[in-house]
């Protein structure tokens, strides 16, 4: 328990650190949303000053930060200048869309990676293994942008998939079954593009973790006892190889979130990515801060989940 409590405390401290970092960046930067207004002859300088005052942009960094932190803890993440609404409702739907996409891609990638990696490790050096390794090498060299654009071009050419967004224009008029089908169709390509980005990393790690275990003396002994091959691989070797893979789960989440930003923009998936991009272009400071922080929350939470899983899976950590 004290292990998990320590990890949780650590996670919270890291998030506080991230929020201070983003705020420092915000304050160090030249220009803000209202800087553009100054150039507009129809808005008087007094109005701009008043607005800056109202949004708390004229105060020093620690004061702004503490005020923001206090309200953030109450669930108020500030105000979007560009959308003219509070940040949190704006962010909430976008964040859940990003989560849906990322989690689905994550699940898909792991579901492919585990059998493929185990298979490649079990047939080490065979043509299967070499083909997998060549495939992962190639996939690793394909940039996310290219995969996403390629899939989009594919959708355009074949017409089998929608070319972006989360729902068809006509979705409102559809029945529930048709609507679900429509949503799934929209989801497939972005999720595939995202999964393709992390897949090679996962396959490689599963393979090497399995190889380590397969070479260990106790597994050779188990093999000597005549345990069937499939049972040996999935019941004995895979659980033993779990530790590095659980840690990988946390790491791959970061790659996934990074990848999703770009893919969401390319495939116009209404997630955090397009929102953040818009906010940057509009200098919508509090949206940027909140979106960046939220991504850190996802990553830190993912790592915490990995810690919990590790705690559950490894008696050595429990004993500590």
């Amino acid at each position, binding site marked *: 328990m004290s292990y998990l409590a320590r990890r949780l405390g650590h996670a919270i401290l*890291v*998030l506080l*650190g*991230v929020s201070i*970092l*983003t705020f420092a*960046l*915000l304050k*160090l*930067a*030249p*220009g803000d949303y209202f800087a553009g207004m100054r150039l507009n002859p129809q808005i008087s300088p007094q109005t701009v000053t008043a607005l800056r005052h109202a949004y708390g942009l004229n105060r020093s960094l620690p004061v702004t930060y503490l005020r923001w932190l206090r309200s953030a803890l109450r669930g108020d993440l500030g105000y979007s200048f560009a959308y003219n609404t509070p940040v949190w409702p704006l962010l909430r739907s976008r964040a859940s869309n990003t989560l849906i996409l990322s989690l689905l891609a994550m699940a898909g990638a792991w579901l492919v990676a585990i059998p493929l990696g185990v298979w490649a490790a079990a047939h080490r050096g065979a043509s299967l293994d070499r083909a997998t390794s060549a495939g992962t*090498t*190639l996939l*690793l*060299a*394909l*940039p*996310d*942008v*290219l995969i996403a*654009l*390629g899939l*989009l*071009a594919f959708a*355009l*050419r074949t017409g089998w998939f929608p*070319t972006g967004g989360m729902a068809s224009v006509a979705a409102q008029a559809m029945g529930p079954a048709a609507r679900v089908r429509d949503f799934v169709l929209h989801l497939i390509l972005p999720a595939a593009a995202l999964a393709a980005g992390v897949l090679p990393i996962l396959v490689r790690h599963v393979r090497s973790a399995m190889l380590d275990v397969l070479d260990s003396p106790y597994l050779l002994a188990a093999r000597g006892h005549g345990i069937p091959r499939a049972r040996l691989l999935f019941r004995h070797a895979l659980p033993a190889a779990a530790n590095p893979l659980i840690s990988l789960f946390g790491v791959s*989440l*970061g*790659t996934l*979130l*990074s*990848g999703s*930003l*770009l893919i969401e*923009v*390319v495939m116009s998936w209404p997630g955090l990515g397009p929102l*953040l*991009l818009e*906010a*940057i*272009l509009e*200098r919508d*400071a509090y949206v*940027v801060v909140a*979106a*960046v922080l939220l*991504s*850190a929350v*996802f*990553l*830190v939470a993912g790592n915490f989940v990995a810690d919990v899983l590790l705690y559950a899976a490894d008696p050595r950590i429990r004993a500590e």
Partner: protein
Amino acid sequence: MQKKLKFALLGLVLIHLAVLGARFFAPYDPAEQHRDFAFAPPMLLHWVDAQGHLHLRPFVYALVYHSESSAAGPYEDDRSRALPLRFFVESTTTHGNSQSAASGEPQRTNHLRLFGVDSPGEIFLFGTDDYGRDQLSRLLYGGQVSLFAGLFAAVLSLGLGILLGSVSGFYGSWPDAVIMRGAEIFMALPWIYLLFAVRAFLPLHVGAQESFFLLVGVIGLTGWARPSRLVRGVVLSAKHREYVLAARSFGASNFYLLRRHILPETYGVVLTQAALLIPQYVLAEVTFSFLGLGVSEPAPSWGNMLAELQKLYVLESYWWMFAAGLVLVPVFLLYHMVADAVQQAQL
């Protein structure tokens, strides 16, 4: 293994040289527009002409505008006009857009190019974009931005990583605590979000050169955390080696120990990191410019060239616009080969 490393390094050197020598290798200036040839498809080099005669000097057919509605695209080859490839041609470059000659006479310069065709006639081996700019030339010039932004950024972040990592590992105590907590904060953000967070609050609309250095700075300064942690690990284990203790007992200064004994231990890790970080950082530049936060038109970068594909009609009809993304693949493959080879050499 050594062979693979040599092959990969040679390939990378050639690519970088080609990009650096863009003025010579590119048939056109990257900003030169051919308004009559918007989205012209790549031309094929021919050796055999329509009559079945073999030519020793390859040639291309001149392109003529046919009709917008034809199935094969608006252009077709003019089989009657073969344009033989000329090598080492003296070419005149018109700087800037000749149509918008606001400054009066456009500037012209002469210099040598590797190849071209006799005027009037054009050669677009990789096709053109919607302004009729030659893609091959833009790829070469764009590589100067994309490849070297990645390279410089990697140098910056590795330099910072080595500095902070060795201070952290060698001196321990509070500098170690401060640096490592900082690294944790930097690593708590998904990488692209971190880049965007830093980029977000910097000026958006800047010139091509400023934005190049801006991107190098942003990418380089945010990437220090992982290399510094790795370097710290190596330094920590190296500083307790007995030969370091022995040198200390002879009165060696900390600087001497770091320079002669400890930092050489980190070379392997640093080289591997370099081979992994450079392609990642090239991609970061491409991503920034793709999303309009990096180098902007008319200066070419692989990212802003790819950005054309965000228009659906371009994506649907003009497959050669993928070139700026496809060139990344061999570059990444070669860098990954280097990383593999260096990593294995250490074991």
